[in-house]
């Protein structure tokens, strides 16, 4: 039975909403993406998620895998959840290396011949006319063939992909090339997606940064991300601080935003911290609420370390507390993105967001959002603004 016609839209979604929003719906058709790192990272997760996202939206994806048997690759991709199998076409580069049979339509018969490898990939592009192509990974070719040949054939794949309106992801970790070779590779790409992984406190932290090549293009900050089975890749903020003066409504903010929340309090006021886990528009965040009273400032200072961003909660009816709020911002540091939540903005006497910004003498453009935490009003908007500030797309 013939597979149904594949879907075609103007943009190719990353599956991460906050990124798609800033990319105008996703990467443009025919774009070439270089998924790059100079040390081992989890960039394959992004590429796999990108492939599955395509298949799920009924786009054909061609996945060239130099490392895995197709059965193993398909099994790995199922970690992202189900998708129509016929939309994922694997180019098998392994069976011939292991001298085993392959049921795949596109099988690289001679792995020692660069032109034979590229001919097979181009045949898959022309035969399937995919919306997405993932090449996993170019360092395999860089390590096995002369550099000039690799760069020439790399361009051939890009041209073939562009001819059918396909977004191409080239994974590449640089083991062997010099900086000027890397510069050539960057200039062949429309988007550079850089990845880094680090280990702190025994926990691996991954982040990526997207740069649109050419003047005036999009450039994000380092975006922390995580992976969860069946969910895929999500933007992940390991520590968002919810802070502000006493009785401004911080615990209510944490509870209202969170799917799950706990609070360590005494007689209704937080004496240690509030904690919540938030999932919102492809963003996952761990949020920590601090006590507002000055006598608990030592706890505030502990939680203020290594924060991704701050939701500063003020009571819009109590301008006398704004000085304390500003002091808390100063303790966190000027480089950390923040959004001011003008809470209790439904109460009589609440100041407008403009007046609060003026009274607090905030830098121009600092976002102040009117909220009513008890009714969950304005909170999600505030968190999304903060997320966009952290990842540098606002």
């Amino acid at each position: 039975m013939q597979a149904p016609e594949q879907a075609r839209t103007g943009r190719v979604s990353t599956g991460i909403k906050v990124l798609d929003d800033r990319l105008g719906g996703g990467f443009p058709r025919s774009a070439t993406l270089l998924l790059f790192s100079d040390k081992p990272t989890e960039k394959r997760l992004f590429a796999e998620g990108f492939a599955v996202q395509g298949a799920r939206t009924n786009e054909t994806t061609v996945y060239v895998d130099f490392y895995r048997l197709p059965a193993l690759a398909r099994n790995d991709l199922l970690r992202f959840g189900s998708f129509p199998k016929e939309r994922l076409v694997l180019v098998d580069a392994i069976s011939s290396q292991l001298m085993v049979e392959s049921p795949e339509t596109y099988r690289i018969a001679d792995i020692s011949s660069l032109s034979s490898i590229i001919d097979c990939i181009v045949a898959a592009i022309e035969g399937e006319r995919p919306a997405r192509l993932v090449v996993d990974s170019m360092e395999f070719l860089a390590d096995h063939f002369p550099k000039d040949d690799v760069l020439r054939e790399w361009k051939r794949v890009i041209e073939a992909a562009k001819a059918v309106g396909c977004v191409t992801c080239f994974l590449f970790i640089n083991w062997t090339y010099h900086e000027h070779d890397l510069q050539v590779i960057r200039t062949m790409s429309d988007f550079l997606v850089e990845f880094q992984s680090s280990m702190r406190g025994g926990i691996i932290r991954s982040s990526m940064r997207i740069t649109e090549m050419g003047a005036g293009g999009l450039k994000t900050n380092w975006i922390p991300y995580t992976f969860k089975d069946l969910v895929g890749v999500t933007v992940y903020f390991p520590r968002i601080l919810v802070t502000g003066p006493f009785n401004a409504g911080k615990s209510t903010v944490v509870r209202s935003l969170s799917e799950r929340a706990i609070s360590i309090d005494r007689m209704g006021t937080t004496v240690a911290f509030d904690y919540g886990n938030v999932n919102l528009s492809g963003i996952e965040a761990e949020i920590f609420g601090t006590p507002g009273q000055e006598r608990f400032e030592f706890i505030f200072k502990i939680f203020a370390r290594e924060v991704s961003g701050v939701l500063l909660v003020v009571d819009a009816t109590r301008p006398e507390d704004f000085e304390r709020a500003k002091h808390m911002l100063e303790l966190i540091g000027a480089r950390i993105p923040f959004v001011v939540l003008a809470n209790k903005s439904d109460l009589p006497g609440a100041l407008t967001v403009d007046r609060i910004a003026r009274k607090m003498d905030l830098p121009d453009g600092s976002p102040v959002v009117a909220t009513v935490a008890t009714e969950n009003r304005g909170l999600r908007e505030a968190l999304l603004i903060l997320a966009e500030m952290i990842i540098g797309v606002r």
Partner: protein
Amino acid sequence: MVSQIRESLRAGERVVFVTLDLHPTEIRARAKALKLDLEPNEGKSLVFVDCYSATSSERPEATPGKKTLLVSSFSNLEGIGMAMSKAAQELGTPVRIYFYTISTLFLHNSTQAIAKFFQIVTSRAKMNMGFILYAVQDGVHEPMTMNLLRSLVDGVVEMRFTDTMEREVRVHHMRGFQVDSAWHPFVQMPGALGGM
């Protein structure tokens, strides 16, 4: 190496075993022959990073995950590096990483790529994970390659068979220590590593 693992586990340390040359089942069997049952430790204080199964086109272990992290290919250096980090994260740091053997990588990757991989992984292990011990086969690499590997580590322990097939060991060098670089005989006995 199995003796080293036994000593580490006995001391309550956590161990990551990266295997490129042997199936984990064979390592378990060899450990048993030395009176060391690895299975009760797996997932708690021992994790295998298995680069052997997938590349030998054997069926990977039934439930890869907690006990064993699979790497798809000897050429997938990035995958090996990340699997080591994930194993360390799973067990909790610090860990002792045993890498058996770096020689196999040379059959599938360029010396330049391995040198960079070796440097990055060693530095990551020392900074964030703990201790790493690589096994390398003597006599199969160019002297330049061996010198490069020696220069990238803190210490080198050499083992050999004599003409009469006796085992000998010596410490070639160990950064920060003055060592006796003479060869010493040793024997392998079940349950213990014994000098003579």
